[in-house]
């Protein structure tokens, strides 16, 4: 039976869990009130077929754009840095990220950070090699009008010894603790995410 909670209380998480997942949705910018550089530019379009093609992206999205791509990357870099400081056992971070839209912060280019379009298979492959202490960040933060996504965030800490310190970290993090639709799921040793 997995442990589920819609808060970040960690009291029940003593021993016996092999992984923990914190998920939720950002509803405001972590940089509220602060200026950021305007990045977006007009498209270099000229021909009618180009306009027809790009029109396919004009669909309504429920969630607003709340950050620029540089802000998102900076925030993820801060998240990685602070998580590694709070949970020293992390030895690999895998982040869901498409092609970078601007120069990435150094913290996202470290040798123990991997950027992937889909982190799941990368994590599974790494675990198959008996490597643990993997911090998986699945983010869907909108930074452009055409980008799909719902500003959701799923953070998974793989490694029994890291479950409790990671939940403590998440509970004290100023933004993670205020995510909308917040939930915490812990997986007992010997169970997969789908087993309840």
């Amino acid at each position, binding site marked *: 039976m997995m442990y589920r909670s819609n808060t970040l209380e960690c009291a029940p998480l003593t021993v016996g869990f092999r992984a923990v997942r914190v998920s939720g949705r950002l509803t405001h910018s972590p940089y509220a009130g*602060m200026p950021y550089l305007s990045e*977006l530019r007009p498209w*270099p379009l000229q021909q009618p077929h180009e306009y*027809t093609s790009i029109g396919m992206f004009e*669909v309504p999205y429920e969630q607003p*754009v709340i950050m620029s791509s540089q802000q998102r990357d900076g925030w993820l870099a801060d998240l990685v840095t602070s998580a590694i400081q709070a949970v020293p056992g992390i030895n690999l971070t895998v982040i869901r990220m498409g092609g970078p839209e601007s120069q990435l912060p150094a913290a996202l280019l470290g040798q123990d950070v991997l950027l992937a379009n889909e982190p799941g298979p990368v994590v599974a492959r790494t675990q198959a090699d008996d490597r643990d202490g993997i911090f998986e960040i699945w983010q869907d933060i909108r930074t452009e009008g*055409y980008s799909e996504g719902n500003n959701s965030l799923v953070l998974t800490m793989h490694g029994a010894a890291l479950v409790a310190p990671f939940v403590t970290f998440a509970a004290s993090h100023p933004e993670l603790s205020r995510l909308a639709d917040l939930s915490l799921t812990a997986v007992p040793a010997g169970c997969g995410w789908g087993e309840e």
Partner: protein
Amino acid sequence: MSARGTLPLPVGGMTSPGSSEPAWTAPGELARLETPCYVFDPATVESDYSDLKRALGTPLLVSLKANPNADLFVRCAPTFVDGIELASQGELNVVVGRSPVAKFINTPAMDQTLMRAGIASRATLILDSLPQVEMLTSLTPKAKPLPVMLRLNAASLVGNVAPPGGGDHFGMDVPDAMKAIIRLRASGVGLRGLHVFAGSHSFKSWSPMILTAVERLLPAVEAAAGAPVDLVNVGGGFPEDWRVQSALFDEYRRSLSRLSSRVKVYHESGRAVFSGCGHFVTKVIAVKSVNGGHVVICDGGIAQCFNLAQTERVMKRLRRPVVVPMREASGAPKALSGQVRVVGNSCSRADVVGELDPAVTVRPGDRLVFSDCGAYTTYSPTAFLNLRAPTLYLVS
């Protein structure tokens, strides 16, 4: 200064504890900004748009020419539910692919490239002249435009053309509009509606006349088109401080009821939507005295914020920017006397953008913040001196 600007707290952003100024105007935060620059607040755009739409009681199009910044558009597009008006391919390229909001394209300079791009973008074309009508019909039936709108010349519509050839150069006079409708009908192009706009700051004097004239013309238009029209965009011309005319808006809203009962009435605005969202920030380069007065020389002025030239005002009343003393500013604060003029960096004698109270101390390095500068930020008469363009920031 708009009425909104007198509120104790700015709309959007965060404020410093115990202060009515946004947090980003603190010296430490201003030091991070590359000047001259603009700082736009999307929350203010959304709030000002909603307030104006509520005051009018009709759908409200946003004229993107007033602020075509792509980041601001992406942040605010969900609010612009009624549509946006575009006047160039460059503006179209800001919005395409970024929002499903309805697009309207209107410019007397629409060429075939823009027309084709607009049709491909599923924009509603607002045709400005008989040559544009002919251009469109030459593209059909291969191109399949949405039903179009016609722009009527405001002076012609209200019968206020004196001397002959007077009025502005936008849109068609009424006889040409009737010819256009017949031509479109014969070509199988639908007529969606009419658009009239009398220009900036025209709301108070022109809008009542436009309503009456449109109502009078509609039966003939619909008879010529062979079908009822869907909407009429009666323009706007709202000033940035439209809130001080609340009684006028109440009366105007009531006067819309007859026209609204037979057709969808739209308004459009750029200045009133964007003006309040923008601050222009410039750095003091030097302070000097001339002929008994003082001059504060800045790294930005009318070359980056032409609004401060106040060319659309009959009486130019110099703005008084907020002076933010910076810790790293050089030299002792200088006691000023006489008239204190704030000037920009364009080497133009017209580049006097503000004045300061002589009691204010100012040093090189200090920042000056001009509020209500969010509209028409890209307007620049020349590229004289190859001066640095303003850096653009948004507030999260």
